[in-house]
């Protein structure tokens, strides 16, 4: 390595020769020392890293064991309390709920069937009545008379109102 190498790099930088500057500088940078660790570092770092890894694994295992233990103990305690104190209440409540629900469902179904049957009866009667020509004719005549009566009433009230204003 000579000062000319440095000059070559500096000239490349100055002249904007990116490729030349890069390759020249890469060669020159080899002169810059890397900061080496002191003797014993590798051993020390290796031991510390290994211990840290073991510690972490132990902590992870202990955490998992603690979580399993907590679930088992918690579940056991909850089951025991349930069996010891809440079992009769739970049983009666459950039975009441089930039976109450069944009665309610059956009652609702019966009511629904009754209403449906009544509606069906009304519809059938109306249909039967309207299906005879004489009945249909009588109904039509009644409607015509009613319409004439309404019209006559309307005219009468209009005449009365006109006379009253004059």
């Amino acid at each position, binding site marked *: 390595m000579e000062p000319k190498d440095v000059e070559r790099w500096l000239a490349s930088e100055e002249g904007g020769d990116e490729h030349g500057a*890069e390759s020249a500088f890469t060669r020159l940078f080899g*002169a810059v020392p890397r*900061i080496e660790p002191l003797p014993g570092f590798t051993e020390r770092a290796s031991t510390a*890293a290994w211990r840290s890894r073991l510690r972490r694994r132990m902590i992870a295992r202990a955490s998992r064991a603690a979580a399993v233990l907590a679930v088992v103990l918690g579940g056991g305690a909850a089951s025991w309390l349930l069996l010891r104190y809440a079992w009769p209440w739970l049983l009666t409540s459950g039975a009441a709920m089930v039976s109450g629900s069944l009665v309610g469902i059956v009652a609702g179904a019966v009511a629904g069937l009754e209403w449906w049957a009544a509606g069906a009866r009304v519809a059938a009667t109306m249909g039967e009545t309207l299906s005879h020509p004489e009945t249909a004719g009588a109904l039509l005549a009644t409607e015509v008379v009613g319409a004439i009566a309404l019209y006559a009433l309307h005219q009468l009230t209009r005449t009365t109102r006109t006379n009253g204003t004059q």
Partner: protein
Amino acid sequence: MTPSDAELAREALAGSQAACGALVARYATAAVNLAARLVNDRARGEDLAQEAFARAFARLASYDPQRRFAAWFLQIVRNVTIDHLRRNRLSTVSLSQLEDAGYAGPPSGAADASPYRQAVREQLGRALDRALQRLRPEYREVVVLHYHEGLTNLEIAEILALPTGTVKTHLHRARKELASMLVEEGWGPSASGCETPTEHDS
């Protein structure tokens, strides 16, 4: 046959302490060099490198063997160092303090070189070292990762979470700044080819 980094990592993950030790031996210098250059403190650099190794082995399961181990590990070193700098907001010290603390200085380099060339190399090494120290930290880290550790722009971009173009720009500007610093020290064309600068010799 020397096992690859990925093989060592796999063995270490399986519980081999020897593989763990081999990886530490392989990357001790890279880790200390990067950390010490970022904090400008060799002893702290060693502590941070040690912490980085511990963190790396704790997370070894997350290492993707398709990726270069150096890039993955140096990212951890960098993160540990940045965390430390953020926590402590350290002031920097000069490289002369590093030398006082046992920093070896420029390597003797090519053993077959002439004494003149070796002297030039040493002087240049010191000059570049000083200039590197004066660089902005973001330029310094890309220079160390690229020219010392041989990482590609893409790998540096992954480590620093920057676009590749930004890494390229940082490298270009860092080189420009280093060039002007060396010119300031008398390495320019004015000192042409005859004698090496002596004013900074220690």
